[in-house]
């Protein structure tokens, strides 16, 4: 089966690390007093993107847009409904992550890791830092305990927890939030993954500590050639850590582009609204008014039209009568899914 894929995509850029095609995740909505019909929630609804080696792709959107679901699909914490996730698509034998099972799935977990948002809840309070960081090595049966000790020490040093010996046998509650997030990074990187999903890794950290963690992730990516999917709700943070940004809305990617380009000249009306809503730390700066109303709804059985139709200031009858627009090049390699942009 893997051979077929290689035939289908023979000429891919060898720099591409991860390629996602038509990824979907549907959930059955839970029935309750108010929703009798148990419709399908289109949490992730056919998205495509690529991440290159040592590139950081930001996945930005409001809560409920499907960004966290996408992250969990990529590390296979949940199973996709449809679509392909190809690791190393340029190689002779790329792996389709979407359908892995059993032993190959376990082996794949070395290649792709995840960093969670909450540094307080993402570590077992009863296990030492050593146990936490060494866990992937242990379950993957990579070397003995003494080797683990060496590698964990080295890793702790790499993430700036020095000297490692003072951290190895502490418990999570003895560390500060910033230190814990560094431990989480160490745990994700200890198996030398090629790709890391970072789900809001700095959103719970204080400003003064945040920059340090952001910079560390950037540095390690460059040094170890890791590709990131950086999930965040904060465009300002994305600006500093991401090479490219993909904006998600109700399960669809509505715009992708180079970070500065996208932030300076957003094409999609949703991106424009999102950007104009971000508060600016300058009291003399007056933001333009946000032109859209309402909040994000839950995409239960969405009609076959632009997902943004009901809130869009540009929408007209054409948008209503046609299916959700495809991502199209709007210049400078910037893709947007909009008929009007």
């Amino acid at each position: 089966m893997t051979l077929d894929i290689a035939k289908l995509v023979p000429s891919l850029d060898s720099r591409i690390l991860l390629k996602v095609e038509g990824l979907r995740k549907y959930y059955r909505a839970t029935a309750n007093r108010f929703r009798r019909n148990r419709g399908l929630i289109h949490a992730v609804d056919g998205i495509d993107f690529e991440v290159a080696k040592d590139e950081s792709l930001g996945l930005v959107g409001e809560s409920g847009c499907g960004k966290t679901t996408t992250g969990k699909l990529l590390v296979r914490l949940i199973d996709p409904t449809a679509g392909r996730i190809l690791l190393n698509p340029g190689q002779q034998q790329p792996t389709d992550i979407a359908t892995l099972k059993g032993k190959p799935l376990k082996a794949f977990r070395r290649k792709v890791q995840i960093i969670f948002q909450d540094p307080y809840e993402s570590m077992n309070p009863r296990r030492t830092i050593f146990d936490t960081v060494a866990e992937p090595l242990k379950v993957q049966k990579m070397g003995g305990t003494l080797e683990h000790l060496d590698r964990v020490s080295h890793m702790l040093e790499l993430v700036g927890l020095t000297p490692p010996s003072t951290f190895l046998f502490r418990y999570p509650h003895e560390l500060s939030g910033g230190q814990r997030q560094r431990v989480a990074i160490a745990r994700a990187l200890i198996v030398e993954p090629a790709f890391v999903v970072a789900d809001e890794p700095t959103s719970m950290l204080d400003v003064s500590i945040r920059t340090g963690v952001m910079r560390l992730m950037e540095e390690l990516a460059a040094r170890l050639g890791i590709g990131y999917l950086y999930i965040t709700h904060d465009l300002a943070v994305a600006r500093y850590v991401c090479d490219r940004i993909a904006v998600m809305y109700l399960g669809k990617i509505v715009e992708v582009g180079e970070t500065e380009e996208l932030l300076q000249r957003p094409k999609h009306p949703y991106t424009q609204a999102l950007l104009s809503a971000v508060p600016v730390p300058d009291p003399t700066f007056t933001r333009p008014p946000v032109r859209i109303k309402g909040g994000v709804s839950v995409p239960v059985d969405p009609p076959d039209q632009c997902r943004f139709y009901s809130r869009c200031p540009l929408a007209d009858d054409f948008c209503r009568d046609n299916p959700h627009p495809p991502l199209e090049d709007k210049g400078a390699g910037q893709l947007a899914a909009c008929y009007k942009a």
Partner: protein
Amino acid sequence: MSERPVLAVEDLTMHYSIKAGAVRAVDGVTFSIERGQALGLVGESGSGKSSIAMTLLRLLPDNAQILRGKILLDGVDIVPLSEERMREYRWNRISMIFQAAMNSLNPVYKVGEQIIEALEAHLESAREESIERVRRLYDVVNLDPGLIVRYPHEYSGGMRQRAIIAMALACEPDLIIADEPTTALDVIVQDHILREMRSIQAELDMSMIYISHDMAVIAEVSDVVGVMYAGKIVELGGTADVFHSPIHPYTRSLMSAFPSVTGKKRELGTLTGEPPNLLDPPEGCRFHPRCPYATDVCSNQEPPKVRRGNHWAACWNPQGE
């Protein structure tokens, strides 16, 4: 502006006593707010900003003591007031929008009922009058009056936050304290709420205290900013002054560490070390162990207030100028 300030806080000091000793959560804090003014308190977690809010409302747990200082609400010191007297002040004169207020609505009662209940407890108004009032409040915060008879789970996050604001406005207080009012909300909803709060404030000529860790939110909503670090206000002044020419090194590093989507992309600053343990804060200036400009005097003597116009900072080595 010569009239009496709505709120004047003088040398307020509040400690929590725990087994290991006294946590000096609020330490010698002084500020005041004029009618119609918005004060922003910005600081990182554990800087004491929420503790100030709880102290101003006298909603403190049993292990907290106000050791020193005055809280003058329209000239009356509320620190020595009995709990009974204090209850008259709360909601009527000073009310609050809590952090995570969205979840503070009782799920088994209709939202309108909860606001009416709060009204009746404080105003002794007739029921029809209260209902009419809630209707007007919903109008003010841009909520459909049809929602009055709905339950909290039928509201979205932003709608719930609006209902909470309506409740805080119910008794037409002189001062509202908003503790992280939009932290759990998405940016677009946050934008709507912040804009509304500002216009309501201007309309009713109310005073506000905004408390947030988000420098950008504070920059947008407040007229005056206080920067908090380890239980103290380290810098206080007009928002433009503080943001454009910060005096305290801590303020400067906060500004430089805070990313923005607009303007030139600049190198983000970072701070070494961790905020101090308030059980045993450092001698002298509490920021000195992390301060790049620290000198010997910083580590053993309380820093003096450096004034520049209406803007001051507590620092031995003031920056700028």
